[in-house]
């Protein structure tokens, strides 16, 4: 098992955000966490990348405990979290944002090669390379956020709401890219409100509701599930 999350409990002050959440990822999978706003999807990702404190429960990455590892060391293990809302550094250029993505690697030559590869994948970023992150459009920022994440050579990529606020055509592009990244060998844990899109590329999925996993299964089965269809796929 690549990632194993067991019975996670997370609190924000008095609010019990995760109430015993468990899920697993196998090497090479795309797994989707779906659910409504406030269901605990983002919090689950933040728990894995150590941005929130876990009250109880365990996280294992390739058999090693991850629960108390600080965020910068989680990154060094190859787990890269692309946060919700993209979180581009607004007053750094595109190139500098990519440099921050490669922060844990120290090789300048490798950086140039990797950046070139990102510009191949996202030609728009090449055009905007000198521009500061804050001036990019939403779609460009999402591409930059993913490119920045890839610069660290992730083995496990955590993507939080990559479709948020983007035009449908851009969403299609982004999901093609995600599928492509996965084909090249990166395991992906995807958090999405757009359940339709997420399940269409995922192998398996978990449905979260108010801090609990209420359903899990193969993505295709979840798509067929009447409860999921009713609640998250617009009921058709």
């Amino acid at each position, binding site marked *: 098992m690549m990632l194993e999350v067991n019975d996670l409990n997370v609190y924000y002050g008095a609010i019990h955000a995760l109430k015993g959440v468990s899920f697993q990822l196998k090497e090479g999978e795309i797994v989707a966490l779906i659910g409504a706003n406030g269901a605990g999807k983002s919090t689950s990702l933040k728990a894995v*990348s150590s941005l929130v404190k876990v009250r109880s429960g365990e996280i294992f990455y390739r058999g090693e405990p991850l629960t108390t590892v600080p*965020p910068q060391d989680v990154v060094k293990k190859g787990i890269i979290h692309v946060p919700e809302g993209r*979180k581009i*550094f607004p*007053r750094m250029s595109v190139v500098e944002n990519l440099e921050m993505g490669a922060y844990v690697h120290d090789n300048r030559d490798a950086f140039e090669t990797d950046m070139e590869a990102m510009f191949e994948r996202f030609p728009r970023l090449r055009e905007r390379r000198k521009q500061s992150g804050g001036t990019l459009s939403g779609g460009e920022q999402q591409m930059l956020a993913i490119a920045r994440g890839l610069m660290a050579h992730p083995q496990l990529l955590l993507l939080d709401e990559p479709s948020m606020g983007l035009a449908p055509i851009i969403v299609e592009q982004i999901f093609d890219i995600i599928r492509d990244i996965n084909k090249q060998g990166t395991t992906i844990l995807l958090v999405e409100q757009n359940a339709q899109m997420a399940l269409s590329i995922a192998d398996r999925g978990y449905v979260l509701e108010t801090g609990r996993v209420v359903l899990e299964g193969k993505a295709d089965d979840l798509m067929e599930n009447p409860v999921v269809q009713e609640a998250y796929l617009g009921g058709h």
Partner: protein
Amino acid sequence: MEGTKRKRSLTLPQNKSGLFRLIAAVVVFALLFWRVGAVATVSQFGADTWLRLAVSGLILGGMYALIAIGYTLVYGILFMINFAHGEVMMIGAFGGYFVFEAFNAIPVTSADGTTLSLLNSYPILAVFLAFLVGMSIAALAGFLLEKIAYRPLRGAPRLVPLISAIGASIFLQNAGQLLFGPQRREYINPDLLTRGTGWEIPIGESSVMLTYTGVFSLVLSAILMIGLFVLVQRTKLGKAMRAVAQDKSTAALMGVDVDKVISQTFVISGLLAGAAGVMWGIHNQLINYFTGFLPGIKAFTAAVLGGIGNIPGAMIGGLFLGIVESVGPAALGIDFQLKDVIAFSILILVLIFRPSGILGEALAEEKV
């Protein structure tokens, strides 16, 4: 966001208090110009005097700028004013002082039989070591200050670390008084940097002296500021500092050790303040435990003037404040002792009319 912000300064303010401030600003500036104009027509001062005042202001401003950078760097990352920063400068000044004292106490007899102190046999080494020690001790002070007074309060409401900063400032002043005594101590410069000597630049019938200590301070300030700018713009540490200033969680997601970067920021601030402290001693001669207080507050004013959180702003603000403080009393026809009044009037005026400073605040979104 940026667009609307810029527009605002071009159009008339919409609300009443904005309009009031605009009118008040116009009145203040009109009065200032009237006063300066009136003084200029009756002034006895020649070009040489004005130049002399401007040069000495520039030298002072360089030191303010170095200290102001420390305020701005720390504010940029932690959104707090490190009010103990002036004391860090004082500690640096004492570091350099003791190096000179030690060098001065050791006599060296050269081959031709003359005896000089080590200070004057190896003046360059002495100056180098004075800066090395002064800057290192100040850096250590900054490092410990953050570890002890600020780190435990991370995540507390913003007022709490501010109070801790004021407490740390008072503590360090008193610790300085206990360690070094209340009396003023004289910085013993090597003869190379004797105060009051320098190059005479003829201006008309008179001349202006560029003192060695002043030129030395100004050049060193400039080098340090350029160095800092390169560090922040080009190096990995600098980029990590900017990333942490813009968004701490995301910086952590890039693999940046945020706490370490915060420590390093305090160390860099301390290095610059320490350098300013040693310069202060070399150029201004007397230091004591209270030496850091006024330059500290002045540098804070400079940082606010330039736009707190903005590094070029701190540099420009420092130089500007130094010059205004030096030229201002003569230009307004008031006593030179009132220079502090001018400096703090600027602080008040900036806070009322343009709290974001001359260059605006580069960190607006995180602040709110």
